């Protein structure tokens, strides 16, 4: 058993122990087992990373399934991409496990929670380690399932259950596209192994082939669902119903980036389909703008972060759309750090506020929660793109590539970035500055979180602060370590975008930094200078109301999709079960009146109607099949 197979095995074992021994494993032990499993995987990943030679390694576990010539094996692929993802997943995952030990300590479902977390890790590792699309799909579905279970973790609240179902259904829509994409890959390439598919692309496939476009489009639909892009993004804000560590791990740092991982993994395919890339880029941009604008008016601390996540994911897709694969991945990485940090910080705040999530009722928390405040501040600066913290480097790289592709896109993306900076600082100021606006009881109860929660905060804060230095561009005297490390991944792609020329890049960088700082300043003026606090829900009006209600997109979906489907379903239900039968009974009702109740039970017209429909269908079938003969006969 090689080191590679051990990585997903540890969380699986952790899940089995906690899952089967649900009521047997003592509470304290459950958390320790799960955390140990995550840490063990992390250690393996680190060792693997240290010994990585640059060669792609394939570890076959077993032959899975053979259909004709198609052979799908359960095997893992270790290369630059999966290694980096492994480090992020197990690293951030471990920290969040540690955090959860503190956060969930009062919860009754402690053991259940940890077993789900481990199961999630297992599937996520399958997703990124699989050496073919089918293994990726298994992981893909698995993380969807875990996300469903964890969103609905506090299932006593029906709304949470609905949110979980919404997430699952939206993801299923995406999965449908993904699955069809896999089928097309099978039929086109005859294999699902990444290496075979990309090898095959190297020779023989023409660049303009429409098949590649369809494959990539279908795969992108899968990514839309998982990574919450327009039009399938509405589940992510609702997913905040889950416990906060879940939001941090699944809905910020790891699972939602699966779509980006998949596109990067298939970069050889995407590079051959410029139409798809175009769509990817614009969908990403639109999502980034829409979500950022909604984020400005939200008052729920987690909702703000959720929309911010959607918006940042939009940035990443925009980067992918302009073929800046390594820049997007860089953003995935830094985003994992600072967004996990933001969520965990938010969790710490919520913990201190006794489950209050409305920022209008917070304020002045920096004195009571110093560690949370400082780490949250670092993360806010990082996400706003202000140097020298992580977000600046990654976001700027994407923006530079976008400018080269289309200045218009760059301008819009910059607007999004300004909004990001604004709502993040708004959140920060409203939460940690000013006067406390909650109840006396809450104020009395305010406390800094235990070490198990603050330790991950501090580690993540360090990473958010220095994470950018993994990939300092030439411009600033660095050597783009990450991009060089990842370069072999894009060998199959025909052209990886080049960076813009240096002086231009410098100008762009300065513009975006100034814009971000300015908008942070505006937020300061509004929320600290003028001490304004968002008004109560009922007083919101005009355009702001539209945005506050998320552009009524949920309602729109409800009217366009949900209602017709449920109407259709009701129609079937009523027409088949009631109308057809009831009408028949109505028609013959007068005659049936005299019959006794027992006879009616037996002969309520149903069997007759059933037979009638059967005979009718037989006649139709025969006529239809023999239509050629019958037409000839009449001529």
């Amino acid at each position: 058993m090689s080191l590679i197979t051990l990585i997903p095995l540890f969380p699986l074992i952790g899940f089995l122990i906690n899952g089967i021994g649900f009521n047997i494993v003592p509470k304290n032990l459950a958390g320790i087992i799960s955390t140990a499993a995550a840490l063990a995987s992390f250690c393996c990943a680190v060792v693997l990373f240290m010994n990585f030679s640059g060669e792609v390694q394939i570890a076959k576990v077993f032959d899975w399934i053979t259909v004709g010539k198609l052979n799908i094996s359960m095997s893992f692929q270790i290369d630059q991409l999966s290694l980096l993802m492994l480090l992020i997943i197990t690293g951030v995952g471990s920290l969040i496990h540690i955090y959860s030990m503190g956060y969930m300590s009062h919860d009754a479902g402690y053991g259940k929670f940890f077993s789900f977390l481990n199961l999630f890790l297992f599937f996520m590792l399958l997703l990124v380690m699989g050496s073919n699309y089918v293994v990726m799909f298994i992981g893909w579905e698995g993380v969807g399932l875990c996300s469903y279970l964890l969103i609905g973790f506090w299932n006593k609240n029906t709304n949470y259950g609905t949110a979980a179902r919404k997430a699952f259904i939206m993801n299923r829509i995406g999965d449908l596209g993904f699955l069809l994409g896999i089928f097309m890959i099978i039929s086109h390439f005859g294999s699902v192994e990444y290496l075979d598919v990309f090898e095959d692309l190297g020779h023989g496939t023409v660049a303009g082939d429409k098949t590649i476009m369809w494959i990539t489009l279908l795969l992108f639909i899968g990514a839309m669902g998982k990574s919450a892009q327009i039009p399938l993004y509405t589940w992510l804000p609702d997913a905040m119903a889950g416990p906060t560590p879940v939001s941090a791990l699944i809905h910020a740092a790891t699972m939602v980036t699966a779509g980006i991982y998949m596109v990067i993994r298939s970069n050889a395919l995407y590079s051959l389909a410029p139409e798809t890339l175009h769509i990817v880029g614009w969908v990403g941009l639109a999502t980034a703008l829409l979500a950022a604008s909604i984020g400005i008016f939200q008052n729920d601390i987690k909702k703000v972060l959720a929309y911010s996540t959607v918006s940042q994911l939009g940035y990443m897709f925009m980067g992918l759309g302009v073929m800046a694969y390594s820049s997007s991945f860089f953003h995935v990485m830094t985003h994992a750090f600072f967004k996990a940090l933001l969520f965990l910080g938010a969790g710490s705040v919520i913990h201190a506020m006794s489950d209050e999530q409305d920022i209008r009722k917070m304020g002045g928390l920096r004195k009571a929660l110093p560690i949370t405040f400082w780490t949250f501040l670092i993360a806010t600066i990082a996400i706003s793109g202000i140097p020298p913290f992580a977000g600046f480097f990654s976001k700027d790289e994407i923006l530079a590539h976008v400018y080269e592709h289309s200045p218009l896109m760059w301008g819009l993306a910059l607007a999004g970035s300004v909004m990001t900076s604004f709502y993040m600082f708004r959140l920060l100021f409203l939460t940690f500055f000013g006067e406390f606006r909650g109840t006396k009881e809450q104020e009395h109860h305010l406390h800094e979180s235990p070490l198990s929660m603050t330790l991950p905060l501090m580690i993540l804060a360090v990473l958010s602060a220095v994470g950018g230095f993994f990939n300092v561009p030439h411009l600033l005297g660095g050597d783009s370590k990450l991009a060089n490390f990842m370069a072999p991944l894009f060998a199959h792609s025909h052209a990886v975008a080049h960076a813009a020329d240096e002086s231009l890049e410098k100008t762009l960088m300065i513009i975006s930094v100034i814009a971000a700082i300015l908008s942070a300043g505006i937020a300061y003026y509004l929320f600290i200078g003028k001490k304004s606090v968002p008004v109560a829900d009922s007083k919101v009006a005009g355009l702001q109301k539209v945005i506050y209600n998320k552009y009524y997109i949920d309602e729109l979906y409800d009217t366009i999709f949900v209602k017709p489907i449920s109407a259709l379903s009701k129609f079937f239900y009523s027409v088949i079960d009631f109308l057809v039968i009831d009408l028949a009974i109505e028609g013959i009702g007068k005659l049936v009146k005299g019959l006794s109740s027992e006879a009616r039970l037996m002969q309520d017209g149903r069997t007759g109607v059933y037979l009638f429909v059967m005979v009718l269908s037989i006649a139709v079938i025969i006529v239809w099949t023999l239509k050629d003969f019958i037409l000839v006969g009449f001529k």
Partner: protein
Amino acid sequence: MLNIILIAFCILTVGSALWVLWTKNVLHAAFALLLTFLGVAALYVMAGADFLGITQILVYVGGILVLLIFGIMLTNQAGNKEGGKNMILTENLNRFWGILIAGGFFGLLFYTFTQAGFQEVEQQHFGEISNHSSTIQITGIQLMTDYVLPFEIVGVLLMIALVGASFLASKNE
């Protein structure tokens, strides 16, 4: 002469079948069914399938119809007591659609058979069948040689029918 008899039996069969459909009294329907069965049996005989004709009479007339009539007579009709008659009346339901579908289906099958070209098919597959010898002997031999397995396996079917009938009909102790 043969044609006239044939037509007469056809009319008997179809006419009594229509009577079955039209009458409201179940007992009358049962008796009309008797005529239908007889007519069909006669048609079988005229088609040269004497064994089938006899079986038809034995099984349907002798067995099934008697069972049917017993069933009707033993059914206790509380509502009809004062009239002194033990009648079961039914209603004809959904007449329009029923006739339409049945008529259409009949037309379809009729068309199919007119197009079938039985004589061709017979020459093609079955060769010469002597018109005068009885089929009973050959059926018997076939049942004990080529078709012995179905013959035996039908025993299982009858067994189930027997066990099932006795089980369903038995009173709970």
